[in-house]
């Protein structure tokens, strides 16, 4: 069942059409990617889901019911532009934000202590936000987003500005949250994270949906029968009636060959043939990366 659905959402700002008949359907406990170039309309859609602004037309459903104001307590939101009161202390501010989401003060304190210990930031409790670095602030804000255990969590560009270690931490936490039952929507340009985390995606460009579906399915759709083969040492292969060699290169005493099959040759058959050429290290279908797909789709439309 879809936890969240947006149907035919349109939003017009004075000079600009931000969303044009956009629909998304987010299954429960899914990690859903909202992709698109800058200015595509992602943030507008996110704001509409959070009831920060309202759509001109269209409807939104949470758990099968129409989205209503109280539902903000079931939704967590980490905006793209991080924002915290600079002069307020960390602990106090986190409790305040949690209370605004409907938690009691006592409950908020309890949960905050848990999260702060988990992320090893308990020392920051009494510091003012302005005393912390940007990465630290983002960590804090991450905690405030998930504290009230929302069913639906929305991250707008959660990895921007994080170093690799922190990026990895956030990725782990997203997976952890999903395990605990949350459904997650995040918008990003970081295609690598999309491949790592997302189950489903929607690609928006110029206010319209131009691609949607599960990540695996999309990549397969765009797969073009290409394979990456890696040999030990210096190996060369020739094309034959079943496959063409697209690219061969040598790298660190390995040979990397990309070939494209013609027709219905099975993997086993290809393997049997190429194995004769040398010491095989790996054999993988060359699915296009999300990055490639993104670029191709957006450029095709433009």
């Amino acid at each position, binding site marked *: 069942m879809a936890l969240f659905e947006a149907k035919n959402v349109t939003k017009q700002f*004075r000079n600009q059409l931000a969303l044009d008949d956009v629909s998304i359907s987010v299954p429960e406990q899914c990690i859903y990617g909202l992709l698109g170039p800058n200015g595509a309309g992602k943030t507008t859609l996110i*704001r509409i889901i*959070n*009831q*920060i*602004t*309202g759509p001109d037309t269209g409807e939104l459903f949470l758990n099968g019911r129409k989205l209503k*104001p109280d539902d*903000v307590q079931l*939704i967590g*939101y980490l*905006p793209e*532009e*991080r*924002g*915290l*009161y*600079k*002069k*307020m202390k960390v602990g106090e501010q986190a409790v*305040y*934000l949690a*209370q*605004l*989401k409907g938690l009691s003060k006592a409950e908020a304190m309890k949960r905050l202590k848990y999260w702060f210990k988990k992320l090893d930031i308990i020392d920051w409790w009494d510091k003012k936000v302005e005393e912390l670095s940007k990465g630290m602030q983002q960590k804090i*804000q991450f905690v*405030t987003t998930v504290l009230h255990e929302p069913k639906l969590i929305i991250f707008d560009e959660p990895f921007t500005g994080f170093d690799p270690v922190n990026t990895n931490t956030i990725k782990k936490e997203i997976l952890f949250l999903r395990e605990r039952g949350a459904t997650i929507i995040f918008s990003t340009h970081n295609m690598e994270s999309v491949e790592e985390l997302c189950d489903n995606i929607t690609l928006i460009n110029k206010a319209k949906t131009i691609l949607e579906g599960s990540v695996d399915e999309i990549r397969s759709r765009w797969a073009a029968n290409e394979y990456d083969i890696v040999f030990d040492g210096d190996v060369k292969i020739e094309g034959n009636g079943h496959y063409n060699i697209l690219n061969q290169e040598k790298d660190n005493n390995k040979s990397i060959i990309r070939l494209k099959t013609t027709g219905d040759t099975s993997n086993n058959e290809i393997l049997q043939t190429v194995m004769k050429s040398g010491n095989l290290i790996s054999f993988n279908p060359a699915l296009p990366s999300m990055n490639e797909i993104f670029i191709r789709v957006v450029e095709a439309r433009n």
Partner: protein
Amino acid sequence: MNKISVIIKREYITRVRKKSFIIMTILAPLLMASIIIVPTLLMMNQSGEFKKIAVIEDKSDLFKGVIKNTKDAEFVYLENTKLEDLKKSFETAGYYGILYISPEIINTPNAVQLISKQQPPIGLLQYIENSLKNEIERQKLLAYKIENLNEIMKNIETNVSIQTIKIDSTGAVKTTSTGIAMGLAYILGFLMYMLVFIFGAQVMRGVIEEKTSRVVEVIISSVKPVQLMMGKIIGIALVGLTQFMIWIFLTLAIVTVLKSTILQKTNITEIAQVAPQNMMTTNNVSAASTAQTAEVSPQLAEFSKMFDSAMNQPWGLIIIAFIFYFATGYLLYASVFAAIGSAVDNETETQQFMLPVTIPIILALMVAMGTMQNPESSLSFWCSMIPLTSPIVMMARIPFGVPYWQIAVSMVVMLITFAFFVWMAAKVYRTGILMYGKKTSWKEMWKWLRYSG
């Protein structure tokens, strides 16, 4: 509603804990008290000393022995002393100063000089002036050769000081004092102006801070924009009220403590003289209280008369009206400030909006000043009804007495208007807080009003 109270609490506590709040709260009453107390102390110090004054009259002896000694001053009439000589040596001779009377005094009032090292206290000057004046009048009368002049003079000597009595609609009489009314009008009007401005500006700054730090987006994913706006406005109002209460309390405490310690020894009337002189520049009050000389009982009577009339002001009405007008006036202006804050990206951009907002307030203050002189003028009347100026002007009118129906009408108009302004401001606020980089102007904000969001 619950969420608004969470916001109110946060806005209140973060501001009340700030060092600047604590300092302002303690400092201001100290300053106020010292403005009243310190000059008084100085004056008293001076007049407390016993002064010996040499009197030199040029070419005559009309005024010999005229100025009588008081408990603070001795007047030593020196014959055959030249002014120039004494000027150099009077201090070492133990004189506080030289009173020089030239022969033209009958016709020219300023033919009298008091030469001294320090500025003489006003009481002393007026005592000397009165003594000389009385003597000159006496001399002039004598010239008419009226019979039994001395007897007649004694009989007609009177002290007049007007006691103002107001009759209200039930025919009950209450004594009042114009001085007190004017003082109160001034204080209340000015206080209202300050409070609206200082705390209205705090609202604006808070809104801008939330906008620039982008925290506003997080918050309005949890509450509606109007809840945030009202929470902030009310929270800051409470800060203002708290500060106000503490001020009153502290000022009263300081004045009471000082009264019972330092000032007990000396003339209460000195304070009655000096304090109004410091706070107001009207002549009425100071003249009334310095008309008498060093007799204690008429002065005490004067002071207690002032005290009585102060007590007889309609305090109940004043307090209620003040709270009402502060609440509505502040809410009106604070919501405008919030709207302005939402429309800009930083504090410097607010400058262009400040002038139109300030004008009604300054206007109100000026009319309030005029009200003190003429409480019944039609300008005062209208400005106490028009909602933008009524908080200040009506408060200035109340000490002079205002019919209840006028107050009621003014309050109703104020209620409707402030609700309207808050509604408009909320619409502008809701759109403005998420808009960055737009060219800000009144026209832009007007567009947001129509925008339903």
